[in-house]
């Protein structure tokens, strides 16, 4: 199938009004907020050198924080703030999605507007300022009738830069729960759906260019005092906002929101759950590409209704436990702990997605390695690769101390490339994921962990506090419990990260459901 006739273009198009609308909403709100804050600050700072230096310094520092980190930082910050307002004033707000995205992006938009406004205002010929005073203008009249109009072209250039930055950076608001064109990019990268990645990038670029050109039209009209141009530009911006708002407003909100983290398996499972809910007659939508701690807090705050997590992840990250009790005990304790936060551990799906040491099957057999204990004596001559976080995780510390592992070298790798690397012999062992479809594809073997250094990672369905007694929801999801085995999940993951229309999470979820039904 050629790239142009790929059916996934059509699938991408069906999400466009939702993703684009959300993207425009968050970008425009952030830009407006950024302007409302930056312009008065710039005006106040223009004749105060110290204030100006501090302001520009702070704005520059914000700019050096990577966009993704800035967005991610706002989530816990707001969460904390929300808890404080709840204690102090008896109300809380959602720290999920729109609000943190708007605040972080607004902060991000400030530097070009501040810098250009201050530069433009300070660059005005002092004789003109004296002339404005001499003809009898008050400072405010001078500002609005002389200084700002003269500074306008440079200020508009700053606003245009900000607009392009904000629209580009808004794609990174997907992991904190704000739907955006980034949903295409994050989903596409995780499921190797290059059509989605391309579609998301092109859509964001086209949007940025369109807004930039409309702002240029307004700037041109204002500068040359051509009312029609300024009006057309303003009309274009207003039309864009209305067009992207209309479909969202007319659509009734979904009854259920299913969360998904940032990897292929999560996209498939959220599609599977959403599919079951729709089959039961409900409307359901997905919030995909959420960060690991964002998704848990979003569930606890009732911002999403249901998602799939892994027992070991919660054990380590949420309960901060480093011991590894047997799975039944761990699940029992986890259930009790979650219940204290009113979160329902609805049940296990039947497979585990744990970290595991993986190597080529033939090589393992040749060396007589079946378990990590067997590996220990060979480790000194071997190299190991893991994902970006593995070597700083407690599992790695536990493995090293339980088996006395000491490798010749260790490397971090993009998870997608790790399997190919171990299959080709570029590294000897990798820290893979047990449910990964590439294990079967590359004929790899998962080494046993006889000392249970790694806690069990059962896939479990979590329900939000407000869904604790939702029997309709629970009835719809019940058929999924204990019905997905590791082989099916590996196959599903392999399909989902393949290339082609059948590889969309929805399509893979339908395939998986057929397998489940047939049992």
């Amino acid at each position, binding site marked *: 199938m050629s790239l142009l006739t790929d059916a996934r273009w059509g699938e991408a198009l069906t999400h466009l009004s939702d993703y684009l609308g959300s993207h425009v909403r968050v970008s425009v709100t952030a830009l407006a907020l950024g302007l409302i804050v930056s312009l008065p600050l710039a005006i106040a700072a223009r004749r105060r050198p110290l204030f100006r230096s501090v302001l520009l310094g702070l704005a520059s520092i914000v700019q050096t924080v990577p966009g993704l980190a800035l967005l991610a930082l706002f989530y816990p910050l707001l969460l904390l703030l929300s808890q404080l307002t709840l204690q102090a004033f008896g109300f809380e707000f959602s720290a999920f999605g729109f609000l943190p995205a708007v605040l972080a992006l607004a902060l991000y938009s400030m530097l070009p507007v501040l810098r250009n406004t201050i530069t433009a205002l300070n660059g005005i010929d002092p*004789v003109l300022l*004296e002339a404005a*005073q*001499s003809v*009898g203008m*008050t400072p405010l009249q001078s500002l609005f009738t002389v200084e700002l109009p003269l500074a306008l072209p440079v200020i508009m250039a700053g606003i245009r830069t900000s607009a392009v930055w904000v629209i580009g950076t808004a794609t990174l608001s997907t992991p904190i729960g704000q739907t955006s064109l980034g949903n295409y990019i994050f989903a596409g990268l995780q499921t190797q759906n290059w059509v989605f990645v391309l579609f998301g990038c092109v859509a964001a670029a086209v949007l940025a260019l369109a807004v930039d050109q409309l702002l240029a039209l307004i700037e041109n009209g204002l500068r040359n005092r051509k009312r029609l141009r300024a009006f057309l530009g303003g009309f274009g911006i207003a039309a864009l906002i209305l067009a992207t708002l209309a479909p969202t407003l007319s659509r009734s909100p979904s009854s259920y929101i299913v969360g998904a983290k940032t990897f292929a398996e999560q996209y498939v499972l959220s599609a599977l759950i959403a599919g079951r809910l729709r089959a039961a007659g409900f409307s359901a939508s997905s919030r995909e590409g959420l960060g690991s701690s964002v998704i848990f807090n979003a569930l606890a705050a009732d911002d999403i209704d249901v998602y799939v997590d892994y027992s070991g992840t919660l054990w380590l990250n949420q309960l901060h436990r480093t011991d590894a009790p047997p799975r039944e005990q761990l699940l029992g304790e986890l259930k009790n702990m979650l219940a204290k936060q009113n979160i329902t551990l609805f049940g296990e799906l039947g497979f585990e997605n744990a970290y595991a040491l993986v190597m080529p099957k033939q090589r393992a057999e040749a060396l007589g390695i079946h378990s990590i204990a067997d590996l220990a004596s060979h480790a000194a001559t071997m190299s190991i690769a893991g994902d970006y976080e593995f070597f700083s995780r407690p599992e790695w510390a536990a493995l090293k101390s339980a088996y006395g592992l000491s490798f010749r070298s260790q490397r971090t790798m993009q998870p997608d490339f790790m399997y190919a690397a171990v299959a080709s012999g570029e590294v000897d062992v990798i820290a893979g994921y047990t449910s990964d479809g590439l294990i079967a594809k590359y004929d790899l073997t998962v080494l046993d962990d006889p000392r249970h250094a790694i806690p069990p990672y059962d896939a479990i369905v979590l329900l939000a506090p407000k869904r604790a007694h939702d029997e309709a929801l629970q009835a719809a999801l019940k058929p999924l419990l204990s019905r997905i085995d590791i082989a099916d999940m590996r196959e599903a993951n392999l399909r989902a990260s393949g290339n082609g229309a059948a590889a969309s999470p929805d399509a893979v979820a339908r395939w998986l459901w057929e397998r489940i039904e047939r049992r």
Partner: protein
Amino acid sequence: MPTTPPIAYCDVSKSFADLAAVDGVSLDVAAGEFLAVIGASGSGKSTLLRLANRLIEADRGSVTVEGHDVRALDPVVLRRRIGYVFQSGALFPHMSVEGNIGVTPKLLGWPAAEIATRVDELLELVRLDASHRDRLPDELSGGQRQRVGVARALAAKPRIVLMDEPFGALDALTRDALRDDFRALHNKLGLTTVMITHDMAEALLLADRIAVMHTGRLKALGTPAELSKSDDAYVAELLRTPRHEVERLNALLPPDGAA
């Protein structure tokens, strides 16, 4: 009975960072008078001018305008009552000729129709064609810009006009025409004008009286004839240049019909 002088400086001093720009100057500007303030750059003449409409505030002494101490007046109201002409016109580049001329009347809240009539009057007064009304300052010549600058200063019918080296940046021909036109306007409208210049010939040709500023002090004050009798060395030096020029010009250009 002595009338109240339109502008009176009484023992006025002003320093910028320990440097005395104006140092103990007392000076009355008479009604209907054209006063030229002459001095080298740094002599304090610009400061003296700006003290009159409170662009600069005095450290010591008092400045009164039409009998009122300027410190007791709202500077914005004061400035709307006094015309001000800058060296290069200092027109607002984003406003048309009409917008520039009508700026003070508009600030005073005149009705639009009245402003439009006034702009027509002023264009005629400064001898600019009505077709220039909608042009931007960029589209005008230096002389035209300065005519608009004068029109702007006169728009709200001030009795006092302050001029900051108004003809300095113009070519000789334009300068000459504008000088004559402005002096005629001064007489016709009964203005009180204070003009700064560093050109003694200009001061002599235009002014009723000349105030000579030197390092912040008022060195001499009088009509051209009175100044020519001054025994002050600095004043004599200032007068030497135009005298010398006249002698040389006379030698080079014999009067018409002379043998």
